[in-house]
Each structure stands twice: as structure tokens, then as C-alpha cells.
């Protein structure tokens, strides 16, 4: 195993974070605990603004938690960047770089020469449905292609743990479904660990092995749900009884959380 035999790829224990100064403090995360096993697909679901992106920033090391610890592959990772691959909500393809030069960004930062990086990326271009576009600029790509390019950039950073922050939020429903099946295919083939953030119940149910439900701000983990659906999954699954039951259960938890959040509001 790439992670050196640690039991958890990602372990977040008791992480809290507030923003703003002491007088005007906004708590964003409160005592968040979660674990992700190697090769697992784990989703964090919660209402908008519940601190999911902050949690990802803490795991990826660009933001320090006020309290708590992050371990990546068994090693302390508070404030340590470059241990995980991070795919943000926006595709963030650089308009001045061709598709191939965009996807090799992580390798380039790691010090690989552009030539070598391109040679390594080229075979994956086709697998990610981008063949013929490697020397195009991002403006020539459709929404789905942009997300695939952004995902390939994350994969080519070559970390076995990927954090995906609502990567398909901006896509239309049909493209989204296609991307879900495609993502699961790539995940099963390449065997990485994925931590996924979304506020879409169906997306969470369809993709994940396990789902953590987060409360409204300050974000806390309020429930954990195991998705015992067979793999490989295709979209026929979403009308099956087992799927609908899990989806309903997840929705119920989430709505309970929404009511609680509503009643807490001043």
C-alpha cells in the first residue's frame, strides 16, 4: 500500500476552526472527527456554508486548525502542504496554458521537467476524454471536459489521496451523471482514496462507500452512513429500492439537521 501501512489514509480528530478576530469570531468547524481508509470513497455532505471547504483547506495544509489534529497516512499533517491532491470547486484551469500544460501543473511544481511531465500525461489524456485537445486552450473545452481536465491535473499530482470539493456542482444533470460513472470507473481502475464534498444527496449516495453528514455552521459531523451498494455501479442503480431507501435515510438525516440549524438561528 502506498500509504505505508497506516490504518487510515486521512484521520481528522477534534478539529475546530474560527475565523475573524477575537471580538468578532465566527466559528466554522467544531470538533470534527472523521476517518478515511485506504482506497475508500468517502463523502462529506452538508448544507452550503457549513465549513466543508475550510475542512479541506485544513486537510490539505493551507489552513491551520485552532484545535485538533490531522493525520495523513499515519503522519501528523497539520499545516503540511503537498501530501494530498486537492481539486477545488472551480476548475481553475489556467487560460494561458494549453490543456496538457494545465494537467501537468502538479508535476511541474514538484520539479519534473515539462517535457517529461508531458510525455507521462499524454497517455492519460485519451483516458480522460480529452484526446485532440491537448494543445487547445481551456476556452475550447466544454464544462464536462474542463472538470475532467481539472481532475486529471489532480490525479497527476500523484498523491494516493484526493480531495474533491463539489467538482460537478456547475454541470448540467446529464453531464453530471456521465461524470459520476466515469469518475467511479477511474477510481476503481487507479485505486486511489477519495474524499468528496457535496450537498447533493443522490450524488453522495451513488458515489460513496460512506457518507458523513455535517451540520450547518459551525460544522460538526452529526451522522455517518454506510452505503452498502454493490460495485461497480451504473446509473440503473438510482431507481433500485436499496438506493432509494439509503437516499431517503440520508435526506431525512440532512433535513433533521436543517431543522436544527433553522431552530438555532436567532
Amino acid at each position, binding site marked *: 500500500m502506498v500509504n505505508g501501512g497506516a490504518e487510515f489514509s486521512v484521520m481528522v480528530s477534534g478539529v475546530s476552526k474560527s475565523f475573524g478576530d477575537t471580538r468578532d469570531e465566527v466559528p466554522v468547524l467544531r470538533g470534527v472527527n472523521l476517518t478515511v481508509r485506504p482506497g475508500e470513497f468517502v463523502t462529506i455532505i452538508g448544507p452550503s456554508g457549513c465549513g466543508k471547504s475550510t475542512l479541506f483547506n485544513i486537510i490539505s495544509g493551507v489552513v491551520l486548525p485552532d484545535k485538533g489534529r490531522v493525520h495523513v497516512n499515519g503522519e501528523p499533517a497539520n499545516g503540511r*502542504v503537498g501530501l494530498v491532491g486537492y481539486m477545488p470547486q472551480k476548475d481553475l484551469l*489556467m487560460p494561458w496554458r494549453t490543456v496538457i500544460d494545465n494537467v501537468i*501543473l502538479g508535476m511541474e511544481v514538484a520539479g519534473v521537467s515539462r517535457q517529461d511531465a508531458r510525455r507521462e500525461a499524454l497517455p492519460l489524456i485519451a483516458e480522460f476524454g480529452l484526446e*485532440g*485537445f491537448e494543445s487547445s486552450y481551456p*476556452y475550447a473545452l466544454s464544462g464536462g471536459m474542463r472538470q475532467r481536465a481539472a481532475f486529471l491535473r489532480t490525479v497527476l499530482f500523484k498523491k494516493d489521496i484526493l480531495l474533491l470539493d463539489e467538482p460537478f456542482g456547475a454541470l448540467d444533470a446529464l453531464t453530471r451523471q456521465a461524470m459520476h460513472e466515469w469518475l467511479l470507473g477511474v477510481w476503481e481502475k487507479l485505486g486511489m482514496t477519495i474524499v468528496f464534498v457535496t450537498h447533493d444527496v443522490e450524488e453522495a449516495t451513488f458515489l460513496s462507500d460512506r457518507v458523513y453528514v455535517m451540520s450547518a455552521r459551525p460544522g460538526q459531523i452529526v451522522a455517518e452512513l454506510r452505503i452498502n451498494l454493490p460495485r461497480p455501479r451504473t446509473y440503473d442503480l438510482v431507481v433500485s429500492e436499496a438506493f432509494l431507501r439509503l437516499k431517503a435515510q440520508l435526506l431525512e438525516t440532512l433535513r433533521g439537521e436543517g431543522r436544527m440549524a433553522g431552530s438555532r438561528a436567532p
Partner: protein
Amino acid sequence: MSVQKRSLSLGRIWAPSAQRHLPGILAQANRIAFSAGLAVLALVVWQLVAYFGSIPEWKLPSLWQVLQTLGSDAGLIARHARVTAYEAVLGFTIAVVVGLALAVAIHQSRLVERALYPYVIASQAIPVIAIAPILIIWLGFGILPKVIVIVLITFFPITVNTVDGLRKADPDMLNLLRTMGASRWQVFKIVQMPSALPLFFSGAKIAAAVSVIGAFIGEYVGASEGLSWLIRRSSAQFLTARVYASVFALSAMGIILFYAVSYIERLATPWTRRPDEPVRTSESR
């Protein structure tokens, strides 16, 4: 300042025409015809006023006389234009180097920003015409004081635009690079520098056009050659047609410099040149 100047009709015409459609060409021709028509109209009015207005030639030579002078004095004008062009290009080039270095220093260091930025702005409040004679006294009649005047005038738009461009870099992109563990230099090279390029070129285009004015001022105060000197000499001798011809040459120089920079901009920022074709998709795959 707009990042993509779509209205540069000349630049558009130079672009490879592979994907261009016929209506596009017609629209292009239309735009150029309009701008050229305006110029022709002005020239005709000038010619008519000069011809029928019984204004003495030393006050307002006719267009035809100016063109004749441009032809008969071509060698003389070209010799002096070469001097002025050399000063302008040299001054502009130094301004690009100095302006860029200043912009990067101001952007990278809070300290430099606080220490230098006020002076950068103050340098533009000083009338260059006032200090040009001082420069001549200090540095003599050579090319150096002229180049300094040009640099003083032209570094400013380059620095200010480039600083703004560097600051405009997408914070999410900076964050992405930070998650990858990129060094400060890598962040600069990969995100900030390319983000600043369009605005840098906006500044450089202004600087290119203005560099000719800088050369003119520098020469005007003390020179023994150059278009500015020629204009002074000719006006003292009431060779008004030659003054006009020299002014023509001077403005032509400014236009050429401007479009030369525009052309370099097009080569350096190919991603801003979107073809007029619909986005292709491969979603069906």
C-alpha cells in the same frame, strides 16, 4: 483598462485568416473604411481650406505641398527620424525593463511598496519639460538626457498597469498552488506573471505611443539632430510645409511603435485570441 482590446482593427487583419468567415471580413473592411473615410474627409477639408481660403503658405501649406515636401525632403526627414526613432525605441526598451522590475519589486515587497510607490506617482507630477533642461546641463547634448526623459515618461503606465495585473491573479489559483507546495517563485512564474501579462501590454502600448513625445521633448530642449530639432529649425525659417511633414513622420512613428507592441502582445498572449468557432464537445464519448 480592458484586458482584451478587440478594437485593434489592424491587429485583427494581421491574424491568420484560417477560421475567418466572409461576413467577418466585410465587417472588418467596413470598420477600416469608416476610419479611413474620416481621415480622407479631414484631408480634403484641409486641402480645400488651404486652396480656397487664401491663407498664406507659411501659415497653412496645402496638403499637396506637405506631401511634396515629404517627397523632396524624404532623405532629410528620414535622417532625423532615424535619430528620434532610435531614442524612442531605446528609451521605451529601458522603460519596459525598469518598469517591470519596479512593478515586481512593489508587488513582492510591502516595504518597497511603501517606500517607492509614492515616488513613482510623484515622478508623474513633475513636469518633464521643466527638468529636461536640467538634464541637459548635467549630462550634455548627447542621447543620454533624451533617453532619461523618455524613460521618466513611459515607465509609469507600465509599472502601474503591471502592479494592478499582478494583484489581479485569481486567489483560488494561488491557493491551489499552495496546496501543491509551490514556492513563492513558482507561484509568481506560474500564476501571477501570466495573469499580469494583458495589463502589462496595455501599459506598454501607452508607453510606446508616448515614447515619441518623450523623444520630442528631450530633443526640443537641446539637440543638434532629430525630428524635434528639424521642426524647430524649419519653423524658424518659415518652412511650414516641412514642419507639417516632420509632424507626419513623428505621428507615423508613434503609430508604428504602438502596433509593433500590439503585434508582440498577440504573439505573447495567444490564449486571448479566440477563434470565431463554436465550442466543440466530446461529451458523447
